[in-house]
């Protein structure tokens, strides 16, 4: 292959594909090309996008966080439990969820750093633990206002207006009530993680750890602290995802969150291929999430059945991984 063409396709291939998709769906599908449709796409990717940004931080330090889906659904249950059963305010519920996420991240980090449990195993264990834990307080029942608590007592608390606002409010932008709050939060987190990883010395050190942990340690980087921090970021972003989920559903549904996990990991991995980065990066992750979102939105609008959507998701992921690991490695093979 021509070297310049290879370089170009590695760098811009995915973005071109993304624009191609948008044009394709705009032409073939009624109502795809509109501001409202764009807001829909963003909303549907907001949740996985937020989780994916967290997992990106753990990928950067050469780790992995399998517990994010479970953290999100635990936050969903915790916020419901806090407001409906304990009748806390929205603020308390949100703070509880965020601290739960941070705590889970801390435990993950300590398991990995202090107790030397491999990252996949530690977070897998945490995933199971959380899936079980979130069901214990309600014996496996979903939480909703009016649910019976036994002994004839009925849960009186409700999801407060302020809490639902986090998930349901929509800002006016061009069109009235266009931009949903979760999208705004997603974009804010994306910008934050992008700046943090790409433009701060902390981010730079995290990348150094991911690339050669020993070397990073030998220049005085506090490897363990950074690794724990990465898992805590991941835990907190996952709990934010859970809060948004709770605010959208307006109830505490028990769920394993495995699909959330898989979708967000896919987004982060697709992100490797964006701009030929060949490594985890926040911009790529956001684009990866968007890519999957646009694809699914377009296909749903075209009435494609759900299994074709999984197939297409898988195909996108596999081709992104080929981009990343084969083509990019051929490029960096130069001069070795």
């Amino acid at each position, binding site marked *: 292959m021509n070297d310049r063409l290879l370089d170009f396709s590695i760098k811009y291939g995915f973005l071109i594909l993304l624009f191609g998709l948008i044009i394709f769906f705009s032409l073939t599908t009624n109502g795809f090309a509109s501001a409202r449709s764009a807001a829909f796409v963003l909303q549907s990717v907001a949740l996985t996008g937020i989780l994916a940004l967290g997992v990106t931080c753990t990928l950067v330090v050469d780790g992995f966080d399998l517990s994010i889906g479970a953290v999100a659904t635990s936050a969903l249950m915790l916020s419901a439990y806090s407001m409906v059963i304990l009748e806390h305010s929205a603020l308390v519920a949100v703070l509880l969820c965020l601290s739960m996420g941070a705590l889970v991240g801390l435990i993950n980090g300590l398991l990995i750093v202090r107790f030397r449990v491999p990252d996949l195993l530690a977070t897998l264990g945490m995933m199971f633990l959380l899936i079980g834990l979130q069901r214990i307080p309600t014996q496996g029942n979903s939480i909703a206002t009016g649910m019976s608590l036994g002994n004839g007592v009925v849960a009186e608390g409700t999801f407060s207006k302020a809490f639902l606002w986090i998930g349901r409010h929509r800002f006016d932008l061009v069109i009235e009530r266009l931009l949903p709050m979760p999208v705004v939060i997603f974009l804010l987190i994306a910008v934050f993680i992008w700046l943090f990883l790409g*433009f*701060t*010395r902390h981010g730079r050190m995290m990348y150094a750890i991911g690339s050669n942990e020993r070397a990073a340690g030998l220049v005085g*980087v506090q490897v363990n602290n950074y690794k724990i921090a990465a898992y805590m970021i991941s835990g907190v972003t996952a709990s934010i995802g859970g809060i948004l989920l709770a605010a959208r559903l307006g109830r505490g549904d028990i769920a394993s969150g495995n699909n959330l996990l898989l979708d967000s990991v896919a987004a982060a991995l697709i992100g490797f291929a964006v701009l030929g980065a060949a490594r985890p990066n926040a911009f790529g992750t956001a684009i990866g999430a968007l890519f999957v979102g646009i694809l699914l939105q377009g296909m749903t609008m075209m009435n494609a059945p759900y299994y074709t959507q999984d197939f297409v998701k898988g195909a996108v992921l596999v081709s992104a991984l080929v981009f990343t690991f084969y083509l990019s490695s051929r490029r960096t093979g*130069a001069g*070795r």
Partner: protein
Amino acid sequence: MPAHALEVRGLLKSFGRNSVLKGIDLTLDYGSVTVLMGANGAGKSTLVKVVCGHHSADGGELHLAGKPFSPLNAADAIAKGVVTVHQSIDDGVIPDLDVANNLMLDRLAEPGSGFFVREGKLRREAQRVADSMGIEVDLKARVADLAVADRQMIAIARAMARKPEVLILDEPTSSLSATEANRLFALIDRLRDAGVAILYISHRMSDIRRIADRILCMRDGLISGAFEDKPLDYEAAVTAMLGHSMLEVDFTVQRASVAVIELQDLQLTVEAQAINLAAHDGEVVAVIGLLGSGKSRLAEVIYGINNAVSGQMRIDGKQYKPVSVQHAVQQGVFMSPKDRATNAVIPDFDIANNMTLPFLSAFSNGSFLNGKRLRRRARDMNQQLGVVCQSETDAIGTLSGGNQQKVMIARWLMEPCRVLLLDEPFQGVDIGARRDIGKHIRASANGRATLVFMSEIDEAIEIADRIVVMAEGSINGEYLNENIELGSLISDISGSETALSGQAQ
């Protein structure tokens, strides 16, 4: 029998716009050791990688034993009789397997070797190979737990077991002790007598004098000189490689001034004798010793990675007790570790980011990095040390070993420090880069004490004001670098062993 074992004609290879091999012609003969010399970036490694099937050639032809030879991949090259032992040791061994399995790995991978591993037979065979190579490690030890030298010996031993037609050794002695190197040379002699064509890549004059039948020099992707007539003209070879003649050691030895770091009764291991040593402002002290002499351990103790059994350290008269690397760096103790690929290089980063990693806060406003300032500083350092690259944003992997090492050294010369520790700074570095680094270290030596840990006497003489010899965790001798009596120095290093390299120049 065809005239040449391997014949290369007009070999071309480029990566992107970067043309690395510009038409290489060379031949290797049966029963002869051809030494390939070349400065960093000359294209030696690329040449090797084409011949051993890692890269495909862009142009030119290869003939092996008279037949056209175009290996599809590394395995294909090996099957056809070209075996390579690479500079990077980890290419050759599987760290998680034990020594016996590593020695027998090729056998295990052969088709038709049976489904089940016959443990007893495997171990007997492995023992035989180890004996023939003079390897004296426990065959049940995990390779990951072995010293670098042992790993290298295993990689070489395995290649030998293949009975190759052409054997390529890419800087095989760069991490071997004198004894181990001698064993290797003995083996190379034997293989040469058996008719194997050997291509030996090295910068070590001592190695070259010992084994070369002919010398080829490479510069800028071309063969710049061939020397076949005995006696071989080594001076001319070096000139052909560098483009100018080798410089004599030329500096004024620094006399002791104010002590910067003092080690008092420092005991590295329970059996070792206590170390008392001071390094002074502006002084460069070479700590030399064989592998396992404790010199790396000493560096690690000073850098806060390991603890001494007992004793004290003082910097500028004040108690110094590092608890971590970070703590050491904060107090002005910097170290460039040995084995740069494992311990220093961040492979995903470009030159500028590799260089600035320890001092990122100097290039940031609050937490945010100032990319411009960072790159400008890296560009300055590149110029000072003469790093050969297109720009400071080149990926570190695109540099040759010597240039990578320059970047790693530059990393620690960026900020002023009190004590600079350099552990094996010339490992896998060609003569040209070695001179550049040495010159820069001496030029910048004022204001700090510099301790250089190394195993080569000639390297030490090139750079140090004072040479301290270590053996078995203790200091065995100390020399001011003026008219050193080599015999005494060598016997300090080891009573019975002879350090070949010291006598070389």
